[in-house]
């Protein structure tokens, strides 16, 4: 019966023996309805080592997004995170596994740094010079680029999941519940209406502060800053950047930190959820 209901509602799912696995956006709503935590095929921006079905689920998500390849050798660019700062994380397996999975689907595959993808998507007006930031679930990815060439890139492991988990820990809620609250009603402007939103705000500020400090440290260590003769824009993207007032809050932090690269503006991407995908598409078209 459940399966029929899922099919009727066009909710993506997979059957494994007697288990139904709901994937995609709806999984979060289902988990909340059932009072359970969602399973995560990815964590901290990479394949979840604790989730045995991670690649299978990713494959199903890819299939539901892309359908069948339009012929062998169709070009496909996927984004990969930059190495996290101050964390001993090995990204090789993640990238190789995703590459292998997509190659086996018949695509001609290449990878693109996630922050650089944001630059490609949103900074055409400055000839692809500037800073692209993607605020995701597991990681915040940053790339400073000059004329489409990455000058410095990094990620930090404080992002949406960190906010959810931290706020959940201090409020006694489940992270999924906090996440739904964050995505449905949280805003920076005005007094927080409840304890959960107050906690979310605290950890948002913590994430912003950590990221801006990392930008200052990482860019300060680059020997190629002399290339930037003009102030460059910062463009923000990703689901964690969606709350109202986020860009203004980030801009205040950037201004206070006085980054080693002069900044012309801080703005939110027009479609923050799609910036990385758009940048990957740009790269694929440019490679063609």
């Amino acid at each position: 019966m459940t399966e029929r209901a899922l099919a009727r509602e066009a909710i993506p799912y997979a059957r494994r023996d007697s288990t139904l696995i709901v994937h995609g956006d709806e999984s979060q709503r289902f988990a909340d309805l059932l009072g359970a935590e969602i399973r995560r095929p990815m964590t901290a921006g990479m394949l979840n080592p604790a989730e045995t079905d991670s690649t299978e689920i990713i494959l199903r998500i890819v299939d539901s997004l892309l359908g069948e390849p339009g012929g062998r050798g169709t070009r496909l660019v996927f984004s990969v995170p930059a190495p996290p700062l101050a964390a001993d994380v090995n990204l090789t397996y993640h990238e190789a596994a995703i590459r292998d999975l997509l190659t086996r689907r018949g695509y001609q595959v290449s990878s693109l740094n996630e922050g650089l993808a944001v630059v490609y998507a949103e900074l055409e007006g400055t000839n692809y010079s500037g800073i692209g930031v993607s605020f995701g679930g597991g990681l915040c990815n940053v790339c400073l680029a000059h004329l489409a060439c990455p000058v410095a890139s990094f990620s930090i492991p404080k992002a949406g999941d960190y906010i959810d988990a931290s706020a959940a820990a201090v409020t006694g809620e489940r992270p999924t519940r906090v996440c739904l609250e964050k995505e449905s009603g949280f805003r920076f402007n005005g007094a927080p209406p409840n304890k959960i939103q107050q906690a979310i705000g605290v950890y948002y500020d913590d994430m912003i502060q950590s990221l801006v400090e990392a930008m200052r440290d990482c860019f300060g260590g680059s020997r190629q800053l002399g290339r930037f003769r003009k102030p460059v824009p910062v463009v923000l993207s990703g689901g964690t950047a969606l709350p109202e007032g986020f860009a203004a809050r980030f801009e205040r932090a950037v201004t206070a930190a006085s980054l080693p690269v002069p900044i012309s503006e801080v703005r939110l991407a027009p479609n923050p959820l799609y910036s990385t995908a758009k940048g990957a598409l740009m790269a694929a078209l440019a490679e063609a």
Partner: protein
Amino acid sequence: MGVIGRAREALQAYRLERRAARLQDPVAKLRCLRRAQAVSADPTGRPAPEAILARVAAAVLLVPSPTASDAWFAATLETPREASSRPPEVWLVEERDGVEYFSNGLRIDNRGAVEGRPRRYPVYDADTLELREWRWVPAGIVYHTTESHIAPFRPEQNPRLMLAGRWMLDYVRRNHSYHFVVDRFGRVHRTVAEEHAANHAGASIWASGGELFVNLNAGFLGIAFETETREPARGAELTPAQKLAGRLLTEMLRARYRIVEANCVTHAQVSVAPAAMLVGNHLDWSANFPFAELGLADNYGQPIAAVAIFGFRFDREFQRATRSALGRGLAAGEELFRRRADSLGRSEPQHRAAVARRYREIVQALRNEARGKEDNSSWAPPRQTSARPSDSTSAPAGLS
């Protein structure tokens, strides 16, 4: 970066920016910029207007630049390849009982593989010698010989062949010496996990496509063939099974990591002795490496990057040992170095001093990064094949 380098870079960026700004189509603009970054000079080698300006600047300012940019130099290192063989698609079919089976017939025995340390390595700009980025996916392959004692490849020698192979593998695993070993029967053994660094290249330098790699333990995968170099000028010999396995393994790794042919090189091509500023600290595969039989273009003619970029020298012994194969790469490297010094208006000693200083800075930065954890020793070819007087990193006994 010095005044000349900055002037040139600014001019190049200015021209590129103007060219890109004229393009209305975002994709065309992105394509233009990406291609310009990949090939930053006229491939004909004619001096660009910026080069003329840079020379004038040098003459007027008389300021030596330690890492001055020369776009011609980067383009030259993008050596035109012979008909490039794109590796066929290779995928993992299954893993059973510790053995991986691949679609091209390759089998890798994972039993006994050990872990190294996670791979993370810097890529420098071969032109400016500045840090470009950090990476974690292998950029190339270095081919080695195990230099272990080997028995004649005959049926009656089978017990000795088996025993020698087993001892050699034990040694390699204990020392995390290579990622893969191809034994004399063509069996491929994974010795260090692919996603980790192995102690195979030690002090080493390579460059291609405008990218410079220093100390290749992390950036390059190490494949060792169980064989022995009796005479460096003649190189080592492989069994037919080893050549076949080497080809399949190379195909798989190139397909998996998109490794370019120019980055499939031998240990002798990349090995250096830093203190003496000499190339050829190790001499394995200084000749006779079967590039063609492994499905690769002959890389022996590529400029030796340590000579071309950092002005490393070579002594008579190395010249004698490698005249048949590496001689072309050494000569090309020297010529590049001379032209580079000339284009910057420097004498060779001046240029050598400047780039040597930069090399030492890079090595120091790498040491700092490793925070003393890295063990750069590699399993050096013993006896006559590693007879460099200085910088010998380790000299383990051969198997007997």
